[in-house]
């Protein structure tokens, strides 16, 4: 109500109810419905993770997350993100460079292909690697003869994770670099800077927050990926079990508080990712605003 008047002080408001919003009982009702819905579907599931994790006390929680199987699942998850995320960062930058700095035919198709893993069911993403590297797969017999194991081993888990998280960095960078245009880079190159120098001195500082944002999303997904990894893992305890798979195994063994203890670590990580995302979002918006201001001042 205040908003409307302050913006239109010269317009007399004669209507009993405010014309551009609902009557207060409706407003209250809608807000209550939104609160209840978010509470039931978002807040409660998060709260119960921590509640169940600590249900048997902090010492039990500590014992669960420091036993050897839990530690090995944490180690494997770290190995997987350590391999998958850097690969997809390099890919994301290259793909964004190719898509935004040049014009060529079929650009839209290329972008759709980059987005493809987002629409494929995680289970299918895992299945395709079984069809290639599994014992009855295309390369199965050959791999067996040279004693290389890809699926039901760590390489398969890494591959499936790379597949699933491939779009995240590229998707953040493409719209950002498209909006920023190529004039800065063109100027640098024209003044004699090499391609690499242009990238590191001009492009990278411009896209750093967008890149950081993409890396957070990519890492969060890599840590939590379940379906695809579950298909190719083979669930060998201590060897091919990542943190989400450890949660599944413990849960299926009816060891609920242990399952929720590992789950609470994953939930903490996702909360951290959400917090970082919020922070960088503000940063990127600020950068975009400043860029706009700069353009206004310079009259470009």
């Amino acid at each position: 109500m205040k908003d409307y008047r302050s913006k239109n002080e010269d317009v007399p408001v004669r209507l009993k109810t405010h014309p551009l919003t609902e009557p207060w009982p409706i407003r209250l009702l809608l807000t209550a419905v939104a609160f209840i819905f978010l509470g039931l579907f978002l807040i409660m599931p998060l709260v119960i993770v921590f509640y169940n994790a600590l249900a048997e006390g902090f010492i039990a929680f500590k014992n669960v997350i420091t036993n050897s199987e839990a530690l090995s699942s944490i180690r494997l998850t770290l190995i997987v993100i350590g391999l998958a995320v850097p690969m997809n960062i390099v890919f994301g930058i290259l793909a964004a460079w190719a898509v935004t700095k040049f014009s060529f035919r079929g650009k839209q198709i290329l972008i759709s292909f980059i987005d493809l893993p987002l629409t494929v069911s995680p289970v299918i993403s895992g299945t395709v690697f079984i069809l290639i590297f599994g014992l009855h797969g295309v390369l199965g017999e050959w791999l067996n003869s040279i004693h290389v194991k890809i699926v039901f081993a760590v390489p398969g888990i890494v591959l499936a994770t790379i597949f699933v998280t491939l779009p995240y960095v590229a998707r953040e960078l493409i719209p950002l670099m498209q909006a920023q245009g190529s004039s800065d880079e063109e100027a640098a190159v024209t003044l004699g800077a090499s391609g690499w120098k242009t990238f590191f001195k001009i492009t990278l500082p411009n896209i750093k927050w967008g890149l950081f944002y993409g890396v957070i999303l990519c890492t969060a997904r890599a840590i939590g990926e379940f379906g695809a990894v579950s298909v190719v893992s083979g669930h060998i305890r201590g060897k091919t079990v990542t943190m989400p798979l450890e949660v599944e195994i413990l849960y299926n063994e009816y060891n609920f508080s242990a399952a929720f203890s590992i789950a609470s670590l994953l939930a903490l990580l996702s909360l951290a990712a959400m917090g970082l995302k919020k922070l960088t979002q503000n940063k990127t918006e600020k950068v975009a605003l400043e860029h706009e201001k700069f353009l206004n001042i310079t009259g470009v």
Partner: protein
Amino acid sequence: MTKKKKKQSVIPGFSMSMGLTLSYLTLIVLAPLSMLFIRAAGLNVSEIKHILLSERTLSAFALSFGASLIAALINCIFGFIVAWVLVRYTFPGKVFFDAFVDLPFALPTAVAGISLTSLYMTSGWIGRYFHILGIKVAYTRIGIIVALTFIGLPFVVRTLQPVLSDMDKQAEEAAVSLGASRWKTFIHVILPEISPALLTGFALALARAIGEYGSVVFISGNMPNRTEIVPLLIMTRLEEYDYSGATVIAAFMLIVSFLLLLMINLLQGWGQRFQEAEKL
């Protein structure tokens, strides 16, 4: 054409970035996915028919589509209310609630699965109240819908929010000054303007729900023919070393996902044209 080419060549690295992008994409995504179709094409038609038309496959598809549709519809209604409240009203803790909408994107699906199950089982914090009403949520189809609603919520809210906050209030003002009630204004002015975004959000939530696995397996009970979703059926076939079965079902599902993706792209194009036309 030559002029354009000369202008492009100022920035170096086209062949390197393009070459590496295409090879990586082909190796990781395109070649593996095409394996699915190559393998399915190797089977004869009667085999494919037998796999797709078996009772178990059909009921899995019916369940996956049905539950995903219901969940996406629920998200359209409540997602709209959440987006409306977050954009139009001010209340304490708004930033906090707004950030929370992303939780289903960030929370690992297995974590979501076990926590929803423990909330909605008959002894759970929420499930016990449904139990009093005689409704069983966890380990039934209702449980599947609950999990898919959780997964799809941010898609609807996040597609609606920017459209709602960019919406020009002039049309609403005009409707009101011409004597329309708030409800009439909503139906005739606001709803048409947001409908492309609402449809896009619906399709995105639907596409995500159909392929969802992690959050559903824990709450669904996984009874063949009754609470077995398609991704779980693929998983079961793989565990039985029935690669043909898994391949055919997965290939069919992939085609459905492609069609949905195409629809989403068309909807987004329509939405953009719609908004541009509005601005003119």
